[in-house]
């Protein structure tokens, strides 16, 4: 199990945010999701270790073979890489 933390908000389908606690683009992307007021689940992969971290990386890799952060997965069907305001707005219909 990947230990996500849930953020409450408007339901736009399941949004999974994979990031790093020190990454500035991850911070900006979360700030944008917070501003948009959508519900999402986030995990900081650098704060995980061992099997948990491997599990999270396997999931990141599935969406993003470059293994970069942030990787945000929308409804298990599309993803946005890096801090990309236009694409995130489009993905949540705002």
């Amino acid at each position: 199990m990947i230990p996500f933390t849930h953020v409450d908000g408007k339901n736009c389908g399941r949004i999974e945010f994979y990031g790093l606690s020190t990454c500035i683009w991850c911070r900006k992307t979360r700030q944008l999701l917070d501003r948009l007021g959508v519900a999402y689940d986030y995990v900081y992969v650098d704060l995980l270790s061992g099997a948990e971290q491997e599990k999270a990386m396997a999931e990141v890799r599935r969406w993003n073979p470059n293994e970069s952060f942030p990787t945000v997965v929308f409804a298990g069907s599309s993803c946005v890489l890096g801090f990309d305001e236009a694409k995130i707005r489009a993905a949540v219909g705002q």
Partner: protein
Amino acid sequence: MSATAAVSDKAVDALLEKLEREAEASGYRLNPDREFARELVRSLLLNQERYGYWACPCRLAAGVKAEDLDIICPCDYRDADLNEFGACFCALYVSAEVAAGERPAASIPERRPPAAARRAARADGSLATPAGRLPLPVWRCKVCGYLCAREEPPGVCPICKAKKERFERFI
């Protein structure tokens, strides 16, 4: 506990000023958005505490120095990203245009190969190249003679600050 609690503002400001001075002296520039740069410098100090070295804040460190050498700041990918995108992956370092506010720094694609490709490159010891064949071209600064082996010359010579166009292909 907040992830950034362990680093003092004083230490952040001291390192930011040091990096600024060094960047200026060698022809590089830090992001002109000071708060943005401060947050990255704070993360560098945090990674210094966590890993013992300045692992890139925006990449997942292995925590094993030999595997993270390429992402110790300034990373192996900075100069190529400055040339191509006007900023390094984190946008701590930026091009002259970005520093002057002529274009914004943005989130860019990852240039670092994924973990499996890095492991394979380490295993096949790609440094042992056949004699007479170099893995990269060598560039020479015609002003001061500085040599560097990389895809393209730097935007500015780190020694004498001559511009990119003053470089010639040497080997």
